């Protein structure tokens, strides 16, 4: 089996519960290399938890997570688990709703610390690569600024660049624009579209139906820890089959 034929991300029967509350009730998903999958659904439907389980920030209770042919949630413990999961996470870029930039580091240092400390890249080379990425997200002039001096949109663009600096195989976006003022959403969406054009494999949890329709190859509608409906965006977002999807979209498109 060559890596070319393997899906980039493969989820099999993912289940997660917090106490007696079941948040994910068996999710299956296949994301092929270079594809973009959007996950939509009401608050509390489990879409963020699903995304968090993929890089084991929220380890699932059952099921399998595969990244490019490698089992992510291996039954390891202690040091062996730490070593394994730290290596796997380097291959998955994560973008948070609240940006979570490191406030004590400049924008540039936010990008270089990962490659330098985790991948042994020389500081000089890490800096060159980081500057390229900052230029790509349109923030080369902010390299020496601390996060406190950046706007929300700029912070999120730095955060995306930080994730990209690790050269991940897949990018996970958890409501990347939900904490932004409306007029700052576009600049972040633009960067994400640019990534999409470069064939980056992406999983996007979002509340923006128009954006999902525009960039996605596949859309998942989740509710109550289950996938209610999935398919290409033209189908799920424009002509949904399920009544629940229809009513959700009616509310969302009306607002």
């Amino acid at each position, binding site marked *: 089996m060559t890596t070319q034929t393997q899906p980039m991300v493969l989820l099999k029967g993912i289940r997660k519960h917090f106490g007696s509350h079941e948040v994910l009730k068996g999710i299956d998903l296949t994301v092929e290399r270079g594809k973009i999958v959007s996950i939509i659904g009401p608050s509390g439907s489990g879409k963020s938890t699903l995304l968090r389980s993929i890089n084991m920030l929220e380890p699932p209770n059952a099921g399998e997570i595969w990244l490019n042919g490698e089992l992510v949630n291996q039954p390891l413990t202690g040091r062996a688990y*730490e070593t394994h999961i730290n290596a796997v*996470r380097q291959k998955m870029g994560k973008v948070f709703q609240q940006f*979570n930039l*490191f406030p004590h580091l400049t924008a540039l240092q936010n990008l270089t610390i990962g490659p330098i400390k985790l991948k042994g890249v020389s500081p000089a080379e890490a800096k060159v690569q980081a500057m390229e990425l900052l230029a790509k997200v349109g923030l080369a002039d902010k390299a020496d600024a*601390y996060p406190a001096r950046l706007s929300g949109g700029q912070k999120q663009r730095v955060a995306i660049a930080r994730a990209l600096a690790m050269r991940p195989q897949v990018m996970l976006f958890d409501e990347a624009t939900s904490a932004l003022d409306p007029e700052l959403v576009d600049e972040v969406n633009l960067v994400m579209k640019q990534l999409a054009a470069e064939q980056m494999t992406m999983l996007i949890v979002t509340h923006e139906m128009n954006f999902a329709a525009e960039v996605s190859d596949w859309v998942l509608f989740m509710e109550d820890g289950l996938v209610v409906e999935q398919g290409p965006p033209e189908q799920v977002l424009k002509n949904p089959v399920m009544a629940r999807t229809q009513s959700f979209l009616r509310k969302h498109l009306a607002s």
Partner: protein
Amino acid sequence: MMLDFSVVPPYAGVLLNGLLWTLLITALATTIATVCGILFALILLYAPLVLRWPVRFICFLIMGTPLLLQLFLVYYGLSQVGVNLPAFWTGVAALGLHYAVYNAQIMRTAILGVDPGQTEASRALGFGRLATLRHFILPQALLVATPQLGNNTLILLKDTALLSVIGITELVLSSQLSISRTFRPFEFYLTIAALYYVINLGMEWVLRRLARRLEAIK
């Protein structure tokens, strides 16, 4: 009362010697207080119970009694049971540990105050637990705690005077030695008071600069 400061210059060497000891004790005790303070905070937060309980007990012992009493107990008490430690190191260690306990409480709060999103971002990049603590949590906690740690250092400076009771010729004991020769207490007391003020001002200046750097990231 007539003050005649001309009695002081002949003892400048004695006072200068005392000043140097005071500065040295402050520097060493502050180092111990900071390093052990961070260490204690980490133990109180993350270590297994076998380590946590002894540290809790040390904190309880030290917070419950005056530093002066602790110095007597450690220095004279230990010599009673046959342990003869040099007065200087006993004093520095006791002073440092005393403030380490207070610094530990400050650091503990500061570490807990770091946004959990920082840990998430670090772990998501692939940093391990220890690396996360070292590169992201501790630096941010230290920045937040710096003004309070600095304040403790200002207080510690003044408490170095207590080491005079175990025979360390820091500023206070140096002045008393000079007074015992000249019988002019106030000239010498006022002189060393001025010296304490000068050190204080210097330290405050450093702290203000640190605070300004802190503002840049807030």
